[in-house]
């Protein structure tokens, strides 16, 4: 669902989801350069295999960044009060991911500010949870 008026969400509403079609090795290299996170577990296949993994794994923070993108697609950055992720399982090269969010609580305070609690998740196309997360949003009355 797309809403132009972000004050109109109700409990149970889904945010507009975000699909990440494919994460390639190139995506990881680009993220490593941009973030400075050159941990070889994300870049060096031999290193990853030494630790019992089939291939390099995706930076958790890259996956959380996709989730953040979904959030800021709906809510302006300044309305986000907190945002957290638990990394439940490893994200692999070529994974297709879907980022989703659902309003689980809506309150309006005495000044008319709206506070949303949002439940977040990132799921792979074989239906494994990669991230479960949450965010709080405050829309100020003005």
């Amino acid at each position, binding site marked *: 669902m797309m809403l132009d008026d972000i004050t109109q969400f109700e409990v149970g509403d889904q945010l507009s989801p975000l699909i*990440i079609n494919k994460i390639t090795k190139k*995506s990881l290299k*680009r*993220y490593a*350069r*941009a*973030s*400075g*996170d*050159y*941990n*070889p*577990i994300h870049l060096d296949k031999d*290193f990853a295999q030494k*630790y019992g993994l089939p291939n390099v794994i995706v*930076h*958790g*923070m*890259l996956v*959380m*960044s*996709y989730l*953040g*993108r979904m*959030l*800021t*697609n709906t809510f302006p*950055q*300044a309305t*986000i*009060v*907190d*945002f*957290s*992720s*638990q*990394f439940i399982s*490893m994200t692999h090269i070529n994974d297709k991911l879907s980022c989703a969010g659902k309003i689980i609580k809506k309150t309006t305070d005495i000044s008319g500010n709206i506070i949303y609690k949002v439940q977040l998740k990132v799921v792979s196309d074989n239906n494994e949870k990669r991230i479960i997360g949450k965010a709080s949003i405050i829309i100020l009355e003005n």
Partner: protein
Amino acid sequence: MKKSVLNKKLIGKQYPAITYKIKKDMLVSFAKATEQVNPIFFDEQIAKEKGHPTIVAPPTFLTVVTMQQEKPYEYLEKINISLSSVLHAGQEYSYYHPIYAGDEIKMKYKIDDIYDKKNGLITFIAFRSKYINQNNIKVAESVSTLVIR
């Protein structure tokens, strides 16, 4: 049952503060790498038109502050944790003030908690960071939890 690999006395350990100047091109390349579509994260002109003083840092950008140091994993080496033994288990952010290109962010961080699960088979370590800008405003706080395999 395995004994916890980390001494709980490390809880509270403070690290020397890190200072990081957010350059515009860092935000642009971070936005590209995370495939941002909202131009406020990479286009200064549009960011200004939307009422921001300049390019805005997206929600997960603060991870860069530690990683762009000369020795980004020194904070682990100092407590004898090898990089290959850890995985990122969780990340929490609280935001207090917008973060923009040009900001100089001072990060103060410490070991917030060390705890075991599964009768000591898995150990977690949590680092709490506070981020303060050049005007001495606390812009954010984060908790980063690593699991030691």
